[in-house]
């Protein structure tokens, strides 16, 4: 099972496209993910020492802030990080038990919590730090792409989307089939130069990040006229102005 499935070219590759140009770092995707998944497919997502020092828990989505570039060209970038549902992820192939698997049909990478021995090797193999150990249950957990929402027939169709996508107040998160070049998400990636993270490692992540857009060129002062010296009594300009209601 941990061998990667044969995925015929064009097989759906469900994933997220995250727009770093509009993400304001509000953490809505992080906490909405936490609450959905706490009682979802992977639940519970334990929190250790919740009301004292060293509080930490299992989160499938974590939002960082970075600063990039220098001087006037510098930027602050908020950066949500979750599983990228890679096409050729070692997190799956290193798994000794077969608990970690990638689905042939939609490309979602999941963990079978009943088979996982909690060895942690998959987390070592994931360059993106996307795997989260549930130390209480002793099993590995991770973003499921909200597999229990996106196909959930008890949820109205328009809401069959990942919790983080629905929550995002700046609509910086988009969900769809990245294998279909016609899909809205693929179009976004094409238009905005969506980035794969650490492509050199060869994991072929499905999720894409839209980099911050080039800032709008600062227009030149439209005119510096009249200069203060030109106008002897500037008020006179308005003196004769005929105004009506």
């Amino acid at each position, binding site marked *: 099972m941990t061998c990667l499935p044969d995925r015929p070219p064009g097989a759906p590759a469900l994933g997220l496209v995250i727009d770093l140009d509009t993400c304001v770092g509000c953490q809505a995707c992080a906490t909405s993910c936490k609450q959905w998944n706490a009682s979802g497919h992977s639940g519970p997502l334990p929190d250790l020492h919740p009301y004292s*020092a060293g509080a930490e828990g299992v989160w499938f989505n974590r939002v960082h802030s970075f600063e990039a570039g220098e001087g006037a060209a510098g930027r602050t970038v908020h950066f949500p990080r979750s599983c990228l549902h890679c096409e050729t992820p070692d997190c799956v192939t290193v798994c000794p038990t077969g608990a970690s698997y990638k689905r042939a049909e939609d490309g979602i990478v999941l963990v079978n919590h009943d088979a996982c021995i909690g060895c942690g090797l998959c987390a070592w193999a994931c360059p993106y730090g996307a795997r989260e150990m549930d130390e209480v249950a002793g099993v590995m957990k991770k973003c499921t792409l909200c597999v229990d929402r996106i196909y959930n027939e008890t949820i109205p169709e328009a809401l069959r989307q990942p919790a983080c996508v629905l929550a995002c107040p700046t609509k910086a998160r988009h969900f769809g089939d990245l294998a279909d070049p016609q899909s809205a998400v693929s179009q976004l990636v094409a238009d905005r130069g969506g980035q794969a993270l650490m492509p050199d490692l060869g994991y072929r992540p499905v999720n894409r990040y839209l980099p911050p857009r080039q800032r709008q060129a600062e227009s030149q002062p*439209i005119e510096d006229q009249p200069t203060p010296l030109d106008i002897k009594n500037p008020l006179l300009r308005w003196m004769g102005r005929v105004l009506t209601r």
Partner: protein
Amino acid sequence: MPEGTTPAVPRPPVDQHVDYSVPVGDDVKSTTCYMCACRCGIRVHLKDGRIRYIEGNPDHPVNRGVICGKGSAGIMTQYAPAKLSAPLLRVGERGSGEFKEISWAEAMEIATGWLRQVRETDPRRLAFFTGRDQSQSLTGFWAAQFGTPNFAAHGGFCSVNMAAGGLYTIGGSFWEFGEADWDHAKYVLMFGVAEDHDSNPIKLGISKVKARGAKFVSVNPVRTGYSAVADEWIGIRPGTDGLFALALVHELLRTDQIDLEFLARYTNATWLVVRNPGGADDGLFARDPNGKPLAWDRARGAVDAALADLSPVVIGEQSLPDGRRAVPVFQLLAERYLDAEYAPDAVAERCGVPAATIRRIAAEIADVAFNQPLVLDQPWTDVWGRTHSQTIGRPVAFHAMRGISAHSNGFHTCRALHLVQMLLGAIDTPGSWRYKSPFPRPIPPGPPPAGKGAKPNTPLTGNLLSFPQGPDDLLVDDAGTPLRIDKAFSWEAPLGLHGMMHTVIGNAGADDPYPIDTLFMFMANMAWNSAMNPAEVIRILTDKRADGSYHIPHVIYSDAYFSETVPYADLILPDTTYLERWDCISVLDRPIGSAHGVGDAIRQPVIAPDRDVRPFQDVLIELGARLGLPAFIKEDGSPRFKDYPDYIVNHQRSPGVGPLAGFRGADGNKKGLGEPNPDQLQRYIENGCFWRDQLPPEQQWFKHANQAYLDGAKAMGLIPNTNQVVLQIWSEPLQKFRLAAEGHGERQPPAALRARVARYCDPLPIWYPPLEHEAQDLGHFDLSAITQRPMAMYHSWGSMNAWLRQIHGANRLYMARTKGEALGLSDDDWVFVESRTGKLKCQVKLMEGVNPDTVWTWNAIGKRAGAWGLTEDSPEAVRGFLLNHVISEWLPAQEGFRAANADPVTGQAAWYDLRVRVTRADGPPVSEPHFSTLREPPNAPRRIEILQYLVKAKA
């Protein structure tokens, strides 16, 4: 998700490990979120009475289905162990935290006893102050019924500058009474906003603006959050936005890029101002015998400024029929701001913004406003009865918040921003800033504040927080002494529209102007993050008189959680959580209206409390009845209202006007005005717990001069008359205060305050350095220090939330890398932050995106050890810190009088005027000041080490 696209999800693959279609829960209820004051609609999914999932309500006009980081963590707020569980009576010394649990019957007896005694003797001795609540229409009404003028909510330390600056200038405000036209704006200029009350609408708006490719500029000393995604970040020096704005005014005037037509039609630019230096009428509007302001018509001379066929002149001193001299407002404005004092080159250095940038921004906004007007094929009719075939907008939208208002010059800065908007003609037009219904209102809205003549057992009639028009409306006695404990509406803060909660305890501690007996607080963490200088508040709350009695004899407090303030009260009335009670986001207070129409909302209980707690509003209504407050009892003395829902439905402020505007009338078909509808709450629930009126398209713009709009709003009871709301460039109320300070009129400020009133009550916007900076060695205290709201935490009230506190468990002091490195500092080093009045210790983080002369931190992350159900080793108490410890509540004493560290016009607390010095710290790695650990309330739940929240339905 891009609007309108539902992603094509393939058929679910067969996967034995996945249950695809587990029902979310067994019940779902809509209500209104209260993890912050944004008032988003939420849907709470329940399973066996426990919360499974909270999502944004897609139909809700505020958030349209999205939900923020706090709102999504509501489960952990609901199940936080810090929740108070029963009424508490203090048994030890104040602050000792020794309480015993008592019954509600006892608690009500005690509270009634204390309050009755006050009401029967001197009702002013009750100070009733509430924090971030949204029930001021009830609490304020209750206070007036009680008969005390001493009521306010948190507005005075929050954003009254913004509210007052707007309401006295344009009849609405940035704050909660206006919004950018996110759908059409081509240029958005945002000043000093990190999060705002409009959290989700702003985020939705920013996403629209960015998707459209409109330019978004953020003026802010710090480049995070909204500023991080702005097309241009202007890292201004704190407290100098007013200068920046007035330099924009200068540039727009110099280059004659102004909308003179707009000014002539919609503002008082054409009104004539009497020029009589030294005279009692100097600076007042020239009026006709009916009191109507006059303008100078090209053909007819001085005429009613409101005439439809006016052809006004805007320059030139004129002789009035009575011989006095007068000039149009526009001339006064042009004369002042064309002065070289306001030229970009003159201000650049102080603002920390290059002059070329200021010139460019002026040119850019002018270009968008005048060369790229937004034309909608939407006819509308103005107050002069003329129909315009199109609605033409100046698509430059401004928004501003506490980066402006939390400075002592914020009121004028806010007016300066409105002045720029008016010059551009960018008020309530397509693409510009727009009023949120029920605004605009007359300027100022009136009537004046109630509060004079407090008498035993007698209600005060009118609104305690209202709108003075001049000296006569101030709440001062004949000697000029304030009538209110907080001194709002006195010469120290003539436009203290929201009261001054930040001075209440300080003044009470000094019996200035008089002692109080009972301090009654609701939802305000005054012994911590909402105090300027919490240590001093704690000192006063525990201060005793010579006879051993407490200086403030009684403190009653309602909180829902074990906050830092709880141990300092004598009687605790534990509140429910927001998911356990009814609430009313009322049109009488700050409703959820938008530019598209008026609206309001309710909260309904979605789960039952499992503790001995009661909704505070129920308690207040019962107290009202027990005390015999006329509006809360029937003729026979029995309670008029069963509980809060009963009040919401049946209370009428004036005939037909109640807390909720929707579904009124016997059959629920009336809006705004209508008799109470017994099914009203049910109708709200069926509608998703909100009601919203959609303005017809012809009423949506130029509402200040849109006849159909004004007629409609009047019919709904939103405004008193249908007159044009003329925008006030020159503010006559301010000039009246100034004239008094110059020795005119019956009511004049005391000598010590004259110069101050004269200076700051300028009828045109001015800029002055933050008052806190005066009499300080700015070379020594070389950095400005400010805070920002983290998006994932609401003041102090998220630390009990197991999820949110993982995100913000401790805070650091951010400073410019260049500055930090010059001090030899690197990340996480410990430093002292020293101000004129205090010193604290914390860790630093160096960054690039901050004005080099500024340091900042996340607000209210630092907590007192033992509070909020957290152990004393929690990072909130060990590494977290509160900037408030070095903020002073008073300005350096001047001319023998002690002034609040506040805006001299509105009394707004000047949190962001703070100056500090940063030095390397030694000693143990614990933040300072570090107060003693608070003792837990009785019967606090046992602390768990592992939390595994799970509420799951079966597939």
